[in-house]
């Protein structure tokens, strides 16, 4: 029973020590010491989470900590799941981070600020789910937001583009905070208390309209944190510019907080709601899934591609949460539990493969200085471990067996298939559409990761820096190996999570499903004749591959001739420039989805002066802008800039005018008071 507070206290102590060490130590011991302490924070968080998942609960009030109300903390299985995921990711990425930051001088991630912030950010990731009152939650939430912002800016001296990404991230994450403040204030005011217990108790007394508004505000803020459209614009900017380990932490642990907040507030505190909430969430999830994966398909920046894949996967999770609420609002609680279990399992799987994807991408960037897939290539022989890790994580991300993403997508699809039991026209329209969107995103995700792996890591290098790349240092490889082991375990024996997943679902008041039954390698759905055994699939594939590789060898009478020339239709020995690039690979898909992606092409033809028919230079530019951003953000930004320009006219420098403003202001205020009272 005392495991949770002990582990949490350890995490806090290690985090504080890490921050102090980051500030105080000189560069050489700083990185390893902070790294080890951060890894300790992760391990302690994972231990606390695992203890909560195994059925322990813990709650406390620390009245001295947050001045007016005191800090309220409570740990149940749902919080435990997110703590365990965050802790495990932090532990593995911290090990990776030591290797990443070491040996690169004290700029970037090795700097004093970044090293001091890193343990605090890691700690906040573990602690956000612990909060049990609005003020505690918002405080920890803001610590994680500010911490990630400072870490995103770590390499601002190396690349100018980091600053712009930082501004976008700062604005959008704080827009989310404003929405959260508004939503929680409204909720707390109507429910008559700011502790989660008070909110839970008072939620039923809140009028339906207010509940809807609270849900809309909170859902917008939380989906923005998860990187779902339309408030996703920070994601493709911040992730690519952040150093590798930071991007891994943000994409694998921080986005989960959005899902946690949504599940905690909407399903637990508000206690569910009418169907329109959930249909809205399904729409956001479906749109994010397809839009994210389409943007990933046309991205040629490796980290941007992986970042947009986060948008896609969080979309899938949101579909699961939305389906859960929809089923619960129709009273089908076992099915709701199944959908939520699928969503939570996908959160776990996504954390594992996305952390590894970003770690591998960070390793590529560190050893080549490149993120552009069009210039990479041939890395499989120069960075064999990194390439292998990327391949393993990509298999998880495309949701095909034997990858780990397959199990959770399978569960999600099962919950939607059986949604036909739920009556209602809205359900009958929404569920097939959700299935279609999941299927479409799964199909395109396959193309996305074939592109990333095939163009970035296979074939031959298209750039000198890619050709001279060297494998990452051992500690980075060790961090990636830890994540790889987690992926394999999740893929082959998802039953390891078994009862913990059921308890997490049970924490929001839904019955457990027993879908991922305890300890076993088999996924079986109670009451539905469907089962899946990932271990069996792996065994069958292995058993089939062995004879397929062996039998042709038996007939072959001569030995293998290696290093024969490539045939290439008689052309022979193609140069690296002739291979397909990421842009050319994605061109057919981009053409298919022309109307959605709206690519921009400019062809500037400069003729020689004497004749318009003789061309001196042709310049071709092609880019695929983020269309939602273009349509939604640009007008707002233009309007703001216009208002700012117009407002400059107000300040003409005349003191008389300023006195006049003051007088007018006073008159308006007095009038308002006179009329208002």
């Amino acid at each position, binding site marked *: 029973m005392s495991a949770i507070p002990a582990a949490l206290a350890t995490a806090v102590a290690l985090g504080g020590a890490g921050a102090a060490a980051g500030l105080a130590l000189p560069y050489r011991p700083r990185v390893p010491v902070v790294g080890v302490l951060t890894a300790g924070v992760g391990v302690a968080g994972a231990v606390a989470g695992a203890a909560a998942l195994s059925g322990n609960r813990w709650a406390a009030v620390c009245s001295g900590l947050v001045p007016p109300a005191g800090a309220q903390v409570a740990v149940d299985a749902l919080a435990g799941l997110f703590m365990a995921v965050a802790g495990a990711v932090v532990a593995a990425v911290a090990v990776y981070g030591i290797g990443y930051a070491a040996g690169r001088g004290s700029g970037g991630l090795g700097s004093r600020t970044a090293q001091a912030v890193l343990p605090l950010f890691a700690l906040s990731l573990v602690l956000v789910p612990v909060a049990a009152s609005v003020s505690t939650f918002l405080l920890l939430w803001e610590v994680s937001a500010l911490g990630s912002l400072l870490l995103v800016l770590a390499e601002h001296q190396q690349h100018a583009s980091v600053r712009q990404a930082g501004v976008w991230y700062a604005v959008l994450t704080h827009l989310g905070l404003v929405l959260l403040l508004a939503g929680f204030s409204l909720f707390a005011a109507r429910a008559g208390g700011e502790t989660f217990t008070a909110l839970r108790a008072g939620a039923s007394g809140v009028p339906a309209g207010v509940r809807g508004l609270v849900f809309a505000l909170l859902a917008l803020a939380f989906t923005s944190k998860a990187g779902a459209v339309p408030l996703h614009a920070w994601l493709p900017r911040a992730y690519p510019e952040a150093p590798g380990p930071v991007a891994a932490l943000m994409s694998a642990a921080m986005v989960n907080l959005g899902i946690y907040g949504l599940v905690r507030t909407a399903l637990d505190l508000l206690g569910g709601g009418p169907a329109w909430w959930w249909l809205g969430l399904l729409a956001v999830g479906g749109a994010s899934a397809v839009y994210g994966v389409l943007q990933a398909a046309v991205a040629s920046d490796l980290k941007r591609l992986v970042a947009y894949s986060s948008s896609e996967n969080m979309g899938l999770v949101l579909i699961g949460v939305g389906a859960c609420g929809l089923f619960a609002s129709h009273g089908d609680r076992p099915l709701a539990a199944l959908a939520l279990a699928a969503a939570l399992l996908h959160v776990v799987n996504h954390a594992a493969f996305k952390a590894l994807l970003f770690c591998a991408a960070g390793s590529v960037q560190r050893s080549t200085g490149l993120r552009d897939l069009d210039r990479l290539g041939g890395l499989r022989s120069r960075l064999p471990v990194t390439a292998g890790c990327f391949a393993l994580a990509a298999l998880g991300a495309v949701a095909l067996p034997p990858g780990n993403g*397959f199990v959770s997508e399978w569960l999600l*699809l099962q919950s939607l298939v059986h949604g036909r039991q739920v009556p209602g026209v809205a359900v009958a329209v929404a569920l097939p559409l959700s299935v279609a969107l999941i299927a479409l995103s799964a*199909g395109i995700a396959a193309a996305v990761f074939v592109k990333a792996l095939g163009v970035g890591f296979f074939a031959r290098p298209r750039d000198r820096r890619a050709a001279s790349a060297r494998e990452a240092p051992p500690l980075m490889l060790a961090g990636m190996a830890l994540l790889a082991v987690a992926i394999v375990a999740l893929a082959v024996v998802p039953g390891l999570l078994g009862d913990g997943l059921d308890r997490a679902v049970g924490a929001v008041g839904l019955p457990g499903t027993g879908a991922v039954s305890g300890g076993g390698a088999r996924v079986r759905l109670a009451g539905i004749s469907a089962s899946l055994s990932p271990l069996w699939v792996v065994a069958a594939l292995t058993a089939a591959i062995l004879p397929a590789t062996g039998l042709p060898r038996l007939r072959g009478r001569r030995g293998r001739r290696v290093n024969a020339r490539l045939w290439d239709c008689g052309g022979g020995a193609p140069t690296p420039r002739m291979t397909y690039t990421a842009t050319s690979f994605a061109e057919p898909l981009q053409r298919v989805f022309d109307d959605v992606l709206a690519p921009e092409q400019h062809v500037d033809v400069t003729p020689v002066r004497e004749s318009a028919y003789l061309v001196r230079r042709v310049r071709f530019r092609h880019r695929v802008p983020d269309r939602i951003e273009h349509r939604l953000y640009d007008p707002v930004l233009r309007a703001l800039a216009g208002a700012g320009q117009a407002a400059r006219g107000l300040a003409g420098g005349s003191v008389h005018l300023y006195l006049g403003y003051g007088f007018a202001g006073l008159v308006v205020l007095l009038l308002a008071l006179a009329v208002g009272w």
Partner: protein
Amino acid sequence: MTHGLGYVAVAGQVTVVAAGAPLLTGWMRQVRARLEGRAGAGVLQPWRDARKLLRKEPVTPVGTGPAFRAAPALLAATAAVAAALLPLLSTDTPVSGHADLIVVVALISLGTIGLALAGLDSGTAFGGMGASREMTVASLVEPTLLLSVFALSIPAGTTNVPAIVAGAIHQPARLASPAGLLAVAALAVAVLAETGRIPVDNPSTHLELTMIHEAMVLEYAGPDLALVEFGAQMRLTLLLGLLSSLFVPWGIATGPSWTALVVALVLFVVKLTVLGALLAAAEVFWAKIRLFRVPELLAGSFLLALLAVTASYFLNGAP
């Protein structure tokens, strides 16, 4: 379920798909040849080609990596596992509890992805071009496959294929429902695209600008090429077998009985022969469509599948 006959059925399915795949291809080429007024090379020609290729020297071109070498085996292995899972001869097999349609679709996609990666791995322009086109088609086919799977699994209440097939045998009316018919049409287009047949891809083309599948495998030679060809033939057999199991399920054994199994085997061969002949005959009259018209065809089949799912929900939704 754990009776010996079940294992015989699974072994029989894999064997009949493996041994029959080249024969089906040979048969389809023969039908095409006859319809075009040629004599044809005979039904056994693909086997003769495979024997010839297997005797040749294995070659590993310079600059290719593990993906290039592993892809042929992966292609054949995924097809073999899928053949073991599907109820081609019997719905009552030891693996029928694992035979989920989503798993089967995913295994088929896994083979496609392996081959596309191999195309990119060779580093040639043709390999990349083939991979790019194949993944474009595959990314649009997979949703159609999954959706038609759903349309079929909704009335059955499960995605388990033997359960769907057994249900269809006992309640033939399910097949004639609007959802079932729409799903057939969608699935048929998806199968044509996934196996690289006309009108999506021309299986016998060697004109570089039009080919999809062939462009990916240009660098293979000898035993590897034999395995790639064999894998592609197995996929064709498998997907046609899936179509026949789902929509003409009669004759598939539902219990442990030798006679039922033999009848199922004979009927399976007959069904595939007829389906193969129909497809070959259709290919004589169709032309391959332009690559950028293919997505229109696939979008059409995707919509059909979506309609099938929606129809299933509305017709079977209210309990």
